[in-house]
């Protein structure tokens, strides 16, 4: 009874709320863009987008909310949608795009996608993420590769070891590095960083098919199986070679340890490159980027994208189309990704201005796509729903912080967490 009254009540409120925005939103042809690109390089690239939009006669209303990889921004976004006052565009990615699409609040970008020939420009893996129910509702900004390992060659030389290419080589190499007085693995013990390392290990130990089965399709037997146990065992090995102060460290501090030669390697996505660049380091010389052990043939992707919300004002709708076009333009894709460390989402772009790591990333992306070893990153909300990924992340981080926990127990827990809806 009560619930039904609430439904009627809230419908009334929503209807009324939408009516209000319709009445007030009509005269302003400005686009409110919700994002969390507040860091130096990112902010600069977002400013480029702003310029492009303004050159087309629209106004960019900046709505930046930083913190926790968009945690705060998502809170704000939900309240805005509930109040019937959503921003024109927002930074949303992965399966969340579909979840928002299911709420019926996103605007359709098919027209501009058709005119721009997006289907031909975007790799199928990317365009699949950008669509809901077969329609384009989002526009991709970049492609991050998550399964990178950043290494300081100087440290490896001093320790007298080669950079490990497989997880089997890993323990021997790290042992020597530790003996030489360095921290083998620079790590920040925050849940999402634990999870990032974990997924690279899963990919390296089990391969792309195992990864897909376990962490994308959430196949119960695979999650509980012996391979997953081995993944956790390897994860425990990595824990041994992390320094004692790693807990709660932010990731760029960990990258700093590679830069100043305190540590040998870090498992982190390619946004870490920005840290090296701003410290004046050159790839191939001061630092090297290699795929995490055993993952050279595979690629875990993390795609940032902008989603457009349904608007009543025709002017704003026009602005949204122009914004989507601007994001897809080669000029923006280049300048944004140069700053961000990622590669353009659009294919067949001239990568002359990019560094070797980005070029390698682009090559591997294409190769992995052909080979079928291109997989979405679970740690970065590309693979499964936020609820499931969160529950699984809890298990992974708990294992990492509880040395007493057995790999078998962890695998069982992970399987149970994967059932979270």
């Amino acid at each position, binding site marked *: 009874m*009560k619930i039904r009254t609430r439904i009627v009540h809230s419908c009334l409120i929503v209807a009324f709320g939408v009516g209000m925005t319709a009445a007030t939103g009509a005269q302003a042809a400005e686009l409110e863009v919700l994002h969390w690109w507040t860091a130096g390089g990112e902010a600069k690239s977002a400013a480029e987008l702003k310029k492009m939009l303004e050159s087309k006669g629209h106004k960019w209303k900046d709505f930046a909310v930083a913190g926790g990889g968009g945690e705060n921004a998502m809170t704000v976004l939900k309240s805005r949608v509930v109040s019937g006052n959503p921003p024109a565009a927002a930074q949303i990615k992965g399966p969340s795009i579909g979840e928002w699409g299911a709420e019926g609040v996103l605007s359709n970008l098919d027209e501009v996608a058709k005119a721009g020939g997006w289907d031909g420009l975007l790799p199928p893996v990317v365009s699949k993420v950008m669509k809901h129910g077969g329609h384009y509702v989002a526009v991709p900004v970049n492609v991050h590769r998550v399964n990178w390992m950043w290494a300081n060659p100087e440290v490896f030389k001093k320790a007298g070891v080669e950079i490990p290419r497989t997880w089997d080589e890993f323990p021997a190499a790290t042992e020597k590095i530790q003996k030489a007085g360095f921290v083998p693995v620079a790590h920040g013990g925050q*849940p999402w960083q634990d999870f990032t390392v974990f997924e690279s290990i899963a990919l390296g130990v089990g391969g792309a098919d195992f990864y897909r089965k376990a962490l994308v399709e959430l196949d119960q037997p695979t999650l509980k199986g012996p391979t997953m146990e081995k993944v956790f065992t390897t994860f425990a090995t990595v824990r041994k070679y992390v320094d004692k102060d790693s807990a709660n460290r932010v990731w760029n501090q960990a990258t700093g340890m590679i830069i100043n030669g305190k540590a040998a390697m870090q498992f982190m996505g390619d946004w870490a490159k920005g840290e090296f660049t701003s410290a004046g380091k050159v790839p191939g010389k001061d630092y090297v980027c290699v795929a995490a052990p055993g993952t050279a043939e595979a690629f875990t992707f993390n795609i940032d994208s902008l989603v457009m919300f349904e608007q009543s004002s025709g002017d704003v709708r026009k602005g949204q189309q122009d914004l989507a076009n601007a994001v897809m333009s080669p000029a923006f894709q280049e300048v944004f990704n140069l700053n961000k460390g990622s590669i353009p989402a659009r294919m067949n772009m001239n990568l002359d201005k990019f560094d070797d790591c980005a070029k390698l990333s682009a090559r591997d992306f294409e190769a992995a796509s052909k080979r079928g070893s291109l997989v979405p990153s679970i740690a970065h909300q590309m693979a499964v729903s936020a609820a499931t990924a969160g529950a699984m992340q809890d298990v992974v981080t*708990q294992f990492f912080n509880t040395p007493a926990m057995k790999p078998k127990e962890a695998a069982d827990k992970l399987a149970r967490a994967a059932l979270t809806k």
Partner: protein
Amino acid sequence: MDLTAQRMTAAPESGAGTEAKPRLGDRIDAWLPKIVLAPTFVCALVFIYGYILWTAVLSLTPSRMLPKYEFAGLAQFEALFANERWWLALKNLALFGGTFVLVCLAVGLLLAILLDQKIRGEGLIRSIYLYPMALSFIVTGTAWKWILNPELGIERLLHDGGFENARFDWLIDPEMAIYTVVVAAVWQSSGFVMALFLAGLRGIDDSIIKAAQVDGASMPTIYRRIIIPSLRPVFFSSFMILTHIAVKSFDLVMALTNGGPGFSSDVPATFMYSFAFTRNQIGLGAASAMMMLMIVVAVIVPFMYSELRRPRHG
């Protein structure tokens, strides 16, 4: 407001001959207090109790990203009770809340008594104790994160100072991380409690103390038997305010430990936030919010009832 007041001042003279009927002014006068209180009452009803009801309804639905009004029974509560992280958050709240409230009361009372000894420079010292209250949790968290960080803060300072083996790594110790939140929270709130106690001490009638002194009672006895018991209302106010801060401790945990290492310093408020908003499990978030509220009510109401029932003087 002015108009009403003028009319009412005018009422006694103009209404001399209308004794039979109650005058309009009187009737408004009789209703006025209720009318004045009505907006607050309505606000509380809608924006507090209405929303609690709404949350209760949500906790019985399968809502995920946005509210969805379908009945799901107690499924969300079952999921909540099966969640290890929730129990850890509750345990942390008990540890944090208990330690925080007790330490704040003790430190606040002690500082107030010390400061009440006719101290030179009292104003300055009082401002120093009080200023942390003025800072936002984002500021507090940032500063303390630095100080408690083993690589940058106190531990490094001790190492540089020659104490090579000194350890001060609560911030990164899953067992101890919650206590760093206590350190920072006590720093922020104890000054305010001190001010409350100081105010209480200043309000005590000097003649009672003088009389006790004449009777030969020692100062510690006077404090124990007379002064501290008479501060009971202050304990009540402080307890209410501190519990309020403890239960809502959200920003500080977010800024200082972000619930980590792992989720070892999670508290119900951060749990609720991250499930309702980040993980798209609004139903579960609502269930945890209801549990939080029930705990608060269970702790506060009996306490408040017994306090407000006591005869009041003054």
